[in-house]
């Protein structure tokens, strides 16, 4: 009976939505393309980035004007609409991978991008709307488009769905924007844009201390981005002046990454060092701080557990699944590509930070009593693996870092979905509050077991390949330090198994329902949680058994990267 009311959307509002869409599309069309002869369809700007953001903005504007009672009613159609809208980017990115829409040449050299599009934006300072994808960004783009609908499904019953689900959609659009941006200015805009929906997700749907967590999250990562921004602006002003379509008419400099990359690469050939050795090291460090906080690496990680514990399930899923990878992506995209000599200079430092994150994250996990906090720290630990891959200075290590980003992007949302379901049904996050879960909630128990096993790197699940590759790349460079990542493998198993022993197992013949349930029978998970988690589980298995699906592209990218940036191999 609610549905009749729900569908009672006035014609005026339909016209509003349609009108806005047309206006934005029109605006996009009026952006002058830099390359006049390029008449191919732009599959990135509007379909992948603009569409989700615009739709969510409209939905939010629309819903926020309604009364509280009508918001409840509207939640159902808005949710459905958001889900459908989020499927469109997924369909497009999947189709692009399989060449269903157009033939995409993924076999790219360094600094070549598929589906590249460039529009003039702010001519005076050399800013352009420049987007494109390569083996580094495409897996992350696909992952984002994949996770947004999954997150919407998993958290289908979240309260205030009229604004909650559009925020998730906006988050997805902003994240994709980060990954496809080929202009430093654009990159930074999207980078900061991702903070906004996440800030509101934590602030409005979070737990008891959400206000503190949201502020901390925002200020902490924002401060780091400011340091990064300073680095970017310095880089902008220090770069050699030039003339061309991409260069600013007033400043004579450009924010365009591809131009910067080709300048840097050309300059770095031989014994030259782009911008000089000292300046490279300083700028590299500034940029890296911004990315390390986002990753996060120890000791800049303390915003993460707070944000995760307070964030709603959907927020955590996207935060851990994609947002953390922005840090790793940023590193590989900007500082490492432009300052290869600084990478060599800082190699041991990166390795040390990676090892510390890895070990410290794992040890702190073992000491946790809160399930979600444990999972949050496990993310810190896993992100350390990425740094190890980068520090190894081997194509296989970089490919491992890429695959780790991807695999962790599938596994960690599942971890947080399990935590969310646990909280949702047992009203507690304490490990040990619910024992014998296998009896009461067999589905949740199976998913928990599966996700935990995937995260501790069980072979044939997605996480294993990356860990193996990192170890392989690590040994020749750092030798017996390998015992530390080895020990972490064991500690990871220890904290996961120990937590399972006290949740899934035990409980005696009758099981032990937690006190927080007040004597009710413990329920199993809802249908929507079930659907969301099973899809994640299936993809964990697929990428575990057939890693080449994603690794082929990543390997290709790393080889091109090493030849282009580090001047190794072919050239």
């Amino acid at each position: 009976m609610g549905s009749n009311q729900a569908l009672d959307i006035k014609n005026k509002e339909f016209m509003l939505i349609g009108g806005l869409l047309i206006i934005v599309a029109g605006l996009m069309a009026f952006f002058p393309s830099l390359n006049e002869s390029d008449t191919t369809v732009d599959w990135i700007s509007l379909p992948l980035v603009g569409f989700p953001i615009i739709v969510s903005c409209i939905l939010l504007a629309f819903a926020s004007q309604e009364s509280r009672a009508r918001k409840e009613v509207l939640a159902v159609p808005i949710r459905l609409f958001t889900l459908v809208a989020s499927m469109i980017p997924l369909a497009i990115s999947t189709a692009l991978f399989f060449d269903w829409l157009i033939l995409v040449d993924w076999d790219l050299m360094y600094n070549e991008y598929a589906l590249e599009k460039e529009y003039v934006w702010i001519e005076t300072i050399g800013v352009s709307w420049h987007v494109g994808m390569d083996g580094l960004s495409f897996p992350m783009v696909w992952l984002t488009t994949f996770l947004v609908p999954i997150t919407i499904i998993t958290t289908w019953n979240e309260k205030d769905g009229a604004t909650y689900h559009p925020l998730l959609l906006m988050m997805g659009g902003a994240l994709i924007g980060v990954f496809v941006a080929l202009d430093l200015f654009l990159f930074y805009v999207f980078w900061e844009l991702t903070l906004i929906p996440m800030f509101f997700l934590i602030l409005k749907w979070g737990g008891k201390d959400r206000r503190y967590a949201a502020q901390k999250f925002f200020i902490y990562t924002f401060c780091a981005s400011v340091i990064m921004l300073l680095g970017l602006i310095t880089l902008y002003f220090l770069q050699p002046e030039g003339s061309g379509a991409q260069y600013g008419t007033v400043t004579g400099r450009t924010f365009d990454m591809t131009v910067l990359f080709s300048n840097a690469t050309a300059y770095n050939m031989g014994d030259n060092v782009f911008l000089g050795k000292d300046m490279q090291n300083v700028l590299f460090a500034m940029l890296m701080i911004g990315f390390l906080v986002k990753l996060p690496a120890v000791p800049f990680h303390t915003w993460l557990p707070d944000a995760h514990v307070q964030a709603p399930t959907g927020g955590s899923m996207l935060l851990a699944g994609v947002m953390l990878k922005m840090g790793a992506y940023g590193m590989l995209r900007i500082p490492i590509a432009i300052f290869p000599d600084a990478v060599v200079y800082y190699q041991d430092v990166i390795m040390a930070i990676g090892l510390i994150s890895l070990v410290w994250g794992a040890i702190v996990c073992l000491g946790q009593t809160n399930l979600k906090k444990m999972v949050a720290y496990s993310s810190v630990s896993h992100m350390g693996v990425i740094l190890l891959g980068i520090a190894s200075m081997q194509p296989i290590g970089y490919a491992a870092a890429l695959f780790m980003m991807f695999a962790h992007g599938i596994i960690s949302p599942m971890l947080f979905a399990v935590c969310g379901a646990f909280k949702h049904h047992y009203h507690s996050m304490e490990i040990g509050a619910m024992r014998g879960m296998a009896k009461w909630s067999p589905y949740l128990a199976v998913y928990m077991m599966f996700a935990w096993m995937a995260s501790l790197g069980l072979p044939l699940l997605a996480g294993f390949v990356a860990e193996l590759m990192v170890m392989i790349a690590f040994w020749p460079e750092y030798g017996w330090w390998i015992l530390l990542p080895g020990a972490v493998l064991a500690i990871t198993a220890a904290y996961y198994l120990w937590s399972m022993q006290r949740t899934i197992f035990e409980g005696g013949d009758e099981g032990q329902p937690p006190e927080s349930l007040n004597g009710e029978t413990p329920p199993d998970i809802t249908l929507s949680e079930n659907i969301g988690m099973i899809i994640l589980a299936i993809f964990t298995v697929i990428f575990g058994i057939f890693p080449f699906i994603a690794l082929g592209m990543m390997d290709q990218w790393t080889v091109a990267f090493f030849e282009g940036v580090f001047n190794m191999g072919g050239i």
Partner: protein
Amino acid sequence: MSGSEIIDYAVLIPLLPFLAFPVILFLGRLFNGTPTWVKNVKEGGIIALVAMGASLILALSLIKEHMNKVGAANVFTWFESSWWNPETGSITTKVFGFGVYIDHLTVMLLFVAAFLCFLINIFSIGYMNTDPINDNRNHRFYAEFVLFCSGMLGMVLADSFLWLFIFWELMGLCSYLLIGFYYERPSAAYAAKKAFLTTRVGDVFLVIGLVMLWNLFDGTLDYDVLFNAENIAAVDSGELQLALGMMFIGAVGKSAQFPLHVWLPDAMEGPTPVSALIHAATMVNAGLYLVARMFPFFGAAEMGALSTLAIAIAIIGGITAVMAALIAFVQMDLKKVLAYSTMSQLAYIFTGLGSALWLANNGYDDLAAFAMGASLFHLFNHAMAKGMLFMASGSVIHEMHHAHHEVAHHGHDDHHDDHHDDHFDAQSMENMGGLASRMPITATAMFVGSMSIIGIPLIGGFWSKEGIIASAWKVALKEPIFLLPAMLVLIGAGMTGFYMSRMWFMTFAGKPKTEVAEHVHEQTPWIPIPLVVLTFMTLGAIIFAGMHAGHWLGDFESGHYTSFVDGIGYEMEHVFLNHDPFLMILTYVAIGLSLVLGPSFAMALYGGSLDGNQKAKPWMQWAINLSAKINKRSNFDNSAWANSSLANSLHKRLHFDDVYDAAMMKIVVGFAKLSAIFDTRFIDGVIKTIESTSQEASRRLRALTTGSARDYIMMTALGTLVIFMLLWGVA
């Protein structure tokens, strides 16, 4: 290659059970409780059986084809990744592939795995589906069971150490799940975690070893590259030894050897078919298989360069053999005795492998082949016998349960009491006794199995055990430090005789010790089939002696001892009429220890005749009579020993578990808890301090907002000036 060969289908052997896993799981979820599912499909048991049967048939045809032929088939490329070589400066693509590799070792272990998986599947249908506690969760059992079988078969067939490891971990997962099958029991949950974590410690080293090996051999772990003698000779043997040593630690964990042995006895928390399959017959052999796979390295590497590792393997084996046997002396739980016995026998095989590897590395190729054959033959015999022993023990426990149920109902006449009496332990040998006449098939199986493990002449394990002891002594004569494992395995032979006999006589001889034991009958269908099959298998193991005599040992070209008769003849001559007088004496000493000394002590302590009207089958009755006689004559008093501090610490399993637990819970978890506090108080504390300081500062800065236009203009001017100065400075 024309047409399709059987090896092209070999990948189906692990794949069929792998696919059966989701099928059973989902059908079970759908049809749980429906009559067809329970009665006709046995809650998934039949699906599993079909899959295992198909795998067995395929495996047998594969074995027949590759009895004397190495075979390999590349199935698919798993993934590719690139490697930058700092010396040449070039980037090359490294392929991580999956394929099938078949040689003598594969053939032997493939047979053991496929055959036992199938038999134990039959046993499981009898054991699991007749116990009400398993109702509606058997589909989980069979799903995990087939997944395990898939892991084991895959590990045996894999053509690289990488995939060996992958399937190895898959087995570890299934072992974890199946030990924790009765998840509601805290002891099972604890045991499952312990098993996974302990083996994980070993696995970490195995991974590191594999990584080292990958780097040594220029980016591959495929057998066909690794086993190439030229490639092996080209690598630095010191590093090779380190890599193999690391891998050996993994084997120590998986095969439950000292000091990573603590998980195996606890693993008996799983259902008995699991103990039979995973923790006796197949998975624990994975470690042995891994070490046996290293054989080519030792043959082709620089002479003597890998001796240290070979000695270490043998010493670990020797220590475990005696230690486990000692602990088995005092165990009262039927399955725990068998668990320690497993540990001890696996240790024998490690000692044998250590000898073989030492001999291979020091140029004694013939002796090495012999030692290797003996070790693998013992693996074979032990798997058959121990699988059977566990199934027989399962049969005993199962019938004890039934009998207890019966007794409880009749005795108390209490119809409400449907639960088992918690105080009654159906696994304790203190509650058994006199079962030989009541369970003839089980008792026979146990009798033959025990004899095989003890090494009673002419039966199964005898041939291989003599070979291992002889090999160890052969090395000891050349390398003095080897005297340690050689002595230990010799002593261990007598100890095996004692604890296995003790187990059999306590369970099957004498008068029933409880009312329950009097009511035991052999009545469950399905269970006797595998017992009978394996009894004959164990008795006739001499037929496979050809394997012992070098035939299975890769010496395909020369092919001596290809016929069974030759093998038997060689075996007989070697064991009983060895031309080396030292070895001949050794053989008879070992026989004396294991046949006479050990069993007679056991008989003296635990022997006894059956109830007056009861009569066992003739092949067991003589042993019971003999034990009764010895028991009466000797009047042996062992109370002094039973109360000794050694016996006490044996009861506590020599304190290993306590120490490990304390180290884990107190030191590691304690440190972790401190770290967690440090993380929030200190690392986050610094951030919080910065935050509160900046808030304080901003509160003060607010004072600048005076509201006076003059102040603002002043500040704007100052700011502009500063910006211009900065710009000049930069320019």
